[in-house]
């Protein structure tokens, strides 16, 4: 039985590669979109604030699986034809962006108002205040919860198997479909996910410990 599990490794490896590919894309897209929208929600006027707030609350209020099915099946009906990978990357990114927005908002709002006012007083423009005063302080508050969001992304990427993308999860399912030995393969898959995610969450804890000296 173990032999089958070992022989299936190259196939699982391909699946793992897809999982990582989807995760990396989603992490990059959601980071960019999340930071922009997060800054928008903190400093933007009401016509920027409300759409972002509604977007974030809406996406955080529905299950990721529903969002994936919705975008995956509904986009073609409105004549948007994406490849299946692009559709799920879009769905996962949209979902993670909502979470990153809140992380960014929390990080920026944790910085005392006086910092921004002081920066204004010495004549820094908005971009400069953000870049030289707010961002360096906010990034410490941002990193640990962001790492948790990255772990959630990797875990969430397993859902793409349900729309037929052969990621690690579906690769495991397919090997089981052929060999009929579920348990060793599920355990193997769990270990593979665990190794990735545990390294990430350990890094998150290390970062938190690194910044533990900061007290407000």
């Amino acid at each position, binding site marked *: 039985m173990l032999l089958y599990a070992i022989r299936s490794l190259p196939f699982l490896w391909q699946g793992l590669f897809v999982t990582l590919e989807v995760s990396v894309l989603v992490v990059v897209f959601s980071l960019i979109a999340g930071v922009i929208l997060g800054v928008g929600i903190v400093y933007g006027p009401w016509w920027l604030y409300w759409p972002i707030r509604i977007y974030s*609350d*809406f996406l955080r*209020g*529905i*299950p*990721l*699986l*529903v*969002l994936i*099915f*919705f975008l995956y*099946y*509904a986009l073609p*009906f*409105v*004549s948007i034809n994406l490849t299946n990978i692009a559709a799920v990357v879009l769905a996962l990114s949209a979902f993670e962006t909502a979470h990153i927005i809140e992380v960014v908002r929390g990080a920026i709002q944790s910085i005392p108002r006086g910092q921004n006012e002081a920066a204004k007083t010495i004549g820094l423009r908005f971009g400069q205040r953000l870049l030289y005063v707010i961002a360096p302080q906010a990034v410490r508050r941002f990193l640990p919860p962001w790492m948790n969001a990255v*772990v959630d992304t*990797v*875990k*969430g*990427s*397993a*859902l793409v*198997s*349900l729309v037929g993308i052969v990621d690690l*999860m579906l690769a*495991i*399912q397919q090997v*089981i479909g052929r060999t009929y*030995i*579920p*348990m060793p393969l*599920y*355990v193997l*898959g*769990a270990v593979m*996910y*665990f190794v990735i*995610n*545990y390294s990430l*969450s350990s890094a998150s804890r290390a970062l938190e410990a690194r910044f533990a000296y900061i007290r407000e």
Partner: protein
Amino acid sequence: MTYHLNFDFVWRHFDKLGWGLVLSLELAFISILIGMAIGLSLALAYTGGGRFTRGIVAGYVEFIRNVPLLLLVYLVFYGVPSVGGFAYDATTSFVITLAVYAGATMVEVFRAGLAAIPGGLIDAGKAIGLTGWQRLLCVRLPTMFRIVLPSLSNAYVSLFKDTSLASVIAVPELTYGAQWINTNSFRVIEVWSVTAPMYLVTGYGLLFLLQRLERRFAVH
């Protein structure tokens, strides 16, 4: 664009969505109850235990938190019966999975809650001569529950959303009902644009109610 919205089929089979929603709430509720029992016992074991106990509890928490829930759902439904030589229906299987999953979250929540109890409170309990058990039941646990209430309501709403994964093993909850309508009518946009608000409204409604409960019991 020539697509015309038509909700007829969705409304005709709305019972699948309505009862699915009820089942989702039930699944989440039973799971969080069992999860709280697991979480409380393990949190107490962790707080009072030696290195070995702590290692076991931490291992459980870390394992569950770093593996996708979908994989756990499959593992419990397909994997465990294959080596255990017994079978259970999909709903039971999912409740077990979600309870074990919730348990890992609850351990962390309760552990933090126990750690947040002011030391003076426990000392005061000692000073008036309460035994260890009495201190636990009358001082530490009531205080802890009031501290962790906000985390509990968040966990419940989050579990409610996680019940959507039960659809993959054909538990007839909300997402499953939606998929059924989806595959039988191809009214894709209609069915998901009814389902998503159902999750949304129920989730935020619950959160609102639970937050009122929190305020009632809040620690001042």
